[in-house]
């Protein structure tokens, strides 16, 4: 039987290309995911290992043990360890930050002490001399080259010690060192200074990460380990950890890789989806192969093959395909990962990246790929078993199999679909993502179980729409559901992918829209620009004389620090600005909070929601304002007036009114500003200066909005941070969601791609099966073009219906999922990304058309005589 299975694979190898490709891609996805994990771990291990590579022992604090007091590894502990017999040298593992000014640029640097002990140095000299004294430094070679630094150059070093004292001095580069991949030194310029100078960076009580120990020749490592731990204990460290460099690396690795495991789990979910789709394609292929071989299988039964032998033969075929394709898939994964790691390692900040093909990634890839293929081939193998010997003697049956949905499956499917649907709805209503997720998962499984109920029916119904347009169309729609089981499996594979992709698209769009609306409510305007005076600055950036961040008490900032009409005019000329309002402080309430005013027509233009413009005698206040009425007094006046409060949903507390209202306030005088004051009831009031509210032109994307923020800052000559607002936050948020969507869609696209291979596969196998029939149709007068068109329509029908149903399902899941996920902190606004959904439909239909080309050409090439002669 093995011989027969192998002969079948050899002879029908072309029919197996697609299924091999599908298994290969699915397996490669899984293997690559596992390799991402092992490579990241190996790269990190290499990086961490580099920090400790020269140490015999590493001493530190066991952070897993709880301590009541803050314990610090400092000079005292270092000296205690150095005094332990058998210890030749101890160096601290410690770094500090600094800015290095080279004359051409200003760079972040990581400063560490140049170890006195040659063996324990993390970076070693390549050229020049070691730093000594206060004003010598070495830099690492990679960054030296990048920044154009050479031995003998002078650089400015600025930094600050923990006690707040500033460091600012000029240093000479005396040497170039190797670049270390140690994660403690990070990806910045690595600067080594003398131990004495380093003391300035860390102050009098340094906090070392660990102590690296070199042993005397012939010292007993175990004895030193115990002694060093005791020495640390004696000096206030209640839980010391002293271990070999190797052990330390492993320990730190574990604490570094927590987040990465989560990432792997997420990737694995996508790999699983791809594998499920692959399984469907495999199942379908084998079902078709078995159907085509009915006569042959029956012949074998007649010649004395046992049922079990036939099943074994099909399973052996699946096994061989599974093993070969999984092996190819693992190789593909290694190739892709080698390429990726090769690229990543060229980036300066990740030069330690290394490809690690863990045994598990190879074994899991091979095992899962093979077992999945076997499981998928199980049902077709059972069908092969049930072929009656007599079938060999009957004239060739026309390809038509009736599939009945099993009762058990029906019951389970309905239960899962309804139960899961109810859970999902509950999750959506109660804004519980976990419940919603499981509900969605269960209901989707249920719907897939019921797929054979509605998929062929829908294809038939949609096909009927075309059947008016001629015989080929009619035949195509009949052929599409000729074997409902096969149609279901093909369409289901695509349905899964499309549902998930469109769910992500709708979910992302709805979340974006909901957050956008929420941010719109929260942020009344797109951009807010504060007066420089509010930050103790003037236009152009220089601080106000005598100011340290707050306006001096009792003084009013000069015009050079306050926004005014001229700035409003400047802002309105900036590209991308649609409206500008200058809000000036006009009044204070009893708590001392300042109220602002602007003209009603201008406010209507800048507010995201024009309906919020306060009416006469009204104040628009933030969400937190609970009073119905507000007692206010105009600036520089003590007469108070009472105004009605209109609450916005903004958290943002600045209250505004129209200029018309302000003019009605008792004692109102224009041009007032508020200095820092203490009000009657003792509460404290910040100084208040005019503010610009700006509305951006509609339709700007996140990058354009960020550019707009920057150009506003530069045009108005204020620092970037004084330009804030919902627009940029919204843009940033949109960007994050879009990036996520892109990544997730890319991952799911693998599943869709595999499903489309499945469509091509099913179609080409069906064409082979219907050779006689196609020939007959050609003999009866069907043109080649009509035959091709017929097959194309068949493919489009199956793929189109699957994509359409997938989009409908995905949209439902997306909306309900978004409701579960973000419903608790934002009102969900329904919004469908029509363009993206149409794109999915279009891609599916076009891919199905493309998939029909090769089989259709083969069918059309056959002459009617040849076709009819084929047995």
């Amino acid at each position, binding site marked *: 039987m093995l011989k027969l299975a192998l002969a079948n694979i050899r002879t029908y190898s072309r029919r197996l290309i697609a299924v091999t490709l599908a298994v290969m891609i699915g397996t490669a996805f899984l293997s690559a995911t596992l390799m991402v994990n092992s490579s990241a771990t190996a790269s990190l291990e290499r990086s961490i290992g580099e920090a400790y590579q020269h140490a015999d022992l590493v001493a530190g604090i066991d952070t897993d043990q709880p301590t009541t007091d803050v314990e610090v590894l400092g000079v005292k502990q270092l000296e205690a360890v150095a005094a332990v017999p058998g210890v030749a040298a101890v160096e601290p593992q410690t770094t500090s930050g600094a800015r290095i000014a080279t004359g051409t640029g200003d760079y972040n640097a990581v400063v560490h002490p140049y170890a006195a002990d040659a063996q324990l140095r993390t970076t070693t000299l390549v050229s020049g001399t070691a730093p000594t004294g206060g004003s010598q430094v070495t830099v690492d070679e990679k960054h030296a080259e990048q920044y154009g630094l050479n031995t003998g150059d002078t650089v400015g070093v600025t930094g600050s010690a923990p006690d707040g004292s500033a460091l600012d001095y000029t240093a000479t580069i005396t040497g170039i060192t190797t670049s270390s991949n140690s994660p403690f030194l990070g990806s910045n310029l690595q600067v080594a200074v003398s131990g004495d100078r380093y003391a300035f960076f860390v102050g009098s009580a340094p906090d070392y990460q660990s102590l690296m120990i070199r042993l005397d020749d012939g010292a007993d490592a175990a004895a030193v380990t115990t002694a060093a731990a005791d020495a640390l204990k004696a000096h206030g460290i209640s839980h010391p950890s002293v271990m070999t460099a190797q052990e330390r690396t492993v320990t730190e690795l574990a604490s570094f890789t927590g987040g990465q495991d989560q990432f792997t789990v997420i990737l694995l979910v996508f790999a699983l989806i791809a594998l499920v789709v692959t399984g469907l394609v495999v199942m379908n292929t084998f079902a078709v192969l078995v159907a085509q071989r009915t006569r042959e299988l029956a012949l074998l039964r007649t010649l004395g093959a046992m049922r079990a032998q036939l099943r074994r033969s099909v399973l052996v075929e699946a096994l061989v395909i599974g093993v070969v394709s999984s092996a190819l898939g693992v190789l593909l994964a290694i190739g892709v990962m080698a390429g990726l790691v090769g690229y990543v390692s060229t980036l300066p900040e990740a030069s330690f990246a290394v490809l690690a093909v863990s045994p598990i990634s190879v074994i899991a890839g091979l095992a899962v790929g093979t077992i999945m293929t076997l499981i998928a081939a199980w049902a077709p193998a059972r069908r092969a078993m049930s072929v009656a010997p007599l079938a*060999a003697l009957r004239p060739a049956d026309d390809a038509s199999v009736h599939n009945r949905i099993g009762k058990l499956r029906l019951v389970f499917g309905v239960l899962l679909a309804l139960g899961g649907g109810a859970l999902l709805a509950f999750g959506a209503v109660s804004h519980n993502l976990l419940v919603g997720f499981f509900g969605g998962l269960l209901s989707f499984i249920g719907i897939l179980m019921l797929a054979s109920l509605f998929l062929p029916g829908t294809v038939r119904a949609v096909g009927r729409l075309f059947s008016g347009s001629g015989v080929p169309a009619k035949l195509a729609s009949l052929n599409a559901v000729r074997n409902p089981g096969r149609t279901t499996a093909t369409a289901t594979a695509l349905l899964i992918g499309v549902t998930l992709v469109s769910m992500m698209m709708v979910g992302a769009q709805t979340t974006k829209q909901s957050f956008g609306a929420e941010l719109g409510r929260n942020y009344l305007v797109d951009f807010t620009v504060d007066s420089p005076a509010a930050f103790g600055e003037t236009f152009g950036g220089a601080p106000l004389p005598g100011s340290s961040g707050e306006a001096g008490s009792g003084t009013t900032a000069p015009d050079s620090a306050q926004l005014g009409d001229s700035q409003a005019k400047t802002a309105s000329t900036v590209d991308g600005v649609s409206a500008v309002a200058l809000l000036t402080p006009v009044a204070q309430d009893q708590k001392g909070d300042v109220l602002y005013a602007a003209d009603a027509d201008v406010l209507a233009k800048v507010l995201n929601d024009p309906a919020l413009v306060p009416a006469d005698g009204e104040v628009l206040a933030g969400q937190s304002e609970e009073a119905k009425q507000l007692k206010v007094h105009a600036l520089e006046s003590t007469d108070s007036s009472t105004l009605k409060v209109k609450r916005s949903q903004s958290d943002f507390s600045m209250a505004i009114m129209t200029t018309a209202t302000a003019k009605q306030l008792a004692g109102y005088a224009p041009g007032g500003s508020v200095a820092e004051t203490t009000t009657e009831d003792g509460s404290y009031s910040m100084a208040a200066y005019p503010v610009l509210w700006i509305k951006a032109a509609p339709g700007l994307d996140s990058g354009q909005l960020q550019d707009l923020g920057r150009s506003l800052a530069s045009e108005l000559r204020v620092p970037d941070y004084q330009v804030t607002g919902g627009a940029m936050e919204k843009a940033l948020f949109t960007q994050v969601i879009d990036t996520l969507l892109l990544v997730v869609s890319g991952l799911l696209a693998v599943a869709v791609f595999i499903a489309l291979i499945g469509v091509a596969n099913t179609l080409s196998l069906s064409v082979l099966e219907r050779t006689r029939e196609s020939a007959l149709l050609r003999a009866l007068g069907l043109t080649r073009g009509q035959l091709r068109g017929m097959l194309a329509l068949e493919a489009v029908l199956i793929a189109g219906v699957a994509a359409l149903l997938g989009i409908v399902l995905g949209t439902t899941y997306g909306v309900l999922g978004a409701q579960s996920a973000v419903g608790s902190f934002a009102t969900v606004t329904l919004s469908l990304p029509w363009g993206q959904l149409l794109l999915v439909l279009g891609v599916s239909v076009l891919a199905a058309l493309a998939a029909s080309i090769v089989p259709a050409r083969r069918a059309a090439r056959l002459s009617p005589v040849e076709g009819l002669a084929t047995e």
Partner: protein
Amino acid sequence: MTITNTHSTTQAVSARGLTKVYGAGPTAVHALAGVDVSFETGRFTAIMGPSGSGKSTLMHCLAGLDSATSGSITIAGQDITQLNDNELTRLRRDAIGFVFQSFNLVPTLTAEQNILLPLQLAGKKHDAGWLAQVVSTLGLGDRLAHKPHELSGGQQQRVAVARALLTRPAVVFGDEPTGNLDTRTGAEVLSLLRSSVREMGQTIIMVTHDPVAASYADEVLLMRDGELVGNLSDPTPEAVTAALASLGA
């Protein structure tokens, strides 16, 4: 009517009271209406009759491919109507050979692999001497490495005959074995079948509607409406044609 070959004691195949009914009630069709028949070892028998006479159904039942409604069938001393599927499969494998109208070779295997297939299914070793003898008798020596599609119709059918003979079965069933062959090649195959009876002592039961093919047999059984209605010993094509004509009348 009952026909029994009385001049021999060893029977390769026999049936008693064999009926096969399709459907039920008033619409029931009796494809076999109580057939008693036995086939002697080492004889070549042809079964003939007009379309719908039940000759194919009789063969399918005798070969254990189709189940009879009632009656018993004995092959090599075993009542096959009492066997389950696995036992029946084993019997087919060991005691029965088939030659079909449409050759029915496995297209993916070479001629030699096709010939050895039943033995391999049974997990048995083949007798190399016997294989060589069968192959040379059938003139297939230089064709063994070819796939079926590389062989002519006559060659394919000779491979099928070799496959049937290799297990030294108690009986070989032929279902219109020359139906897809031209006259000359058909005559060749029939001669081979007859010589296997003469020289190797093989038992062959063949269903055909060709009087010339039937004339190669030792005996012809005639069927009509699910019953055996006559027999001819040492038939000639003319005698068979005449007998068939009398059935149709």
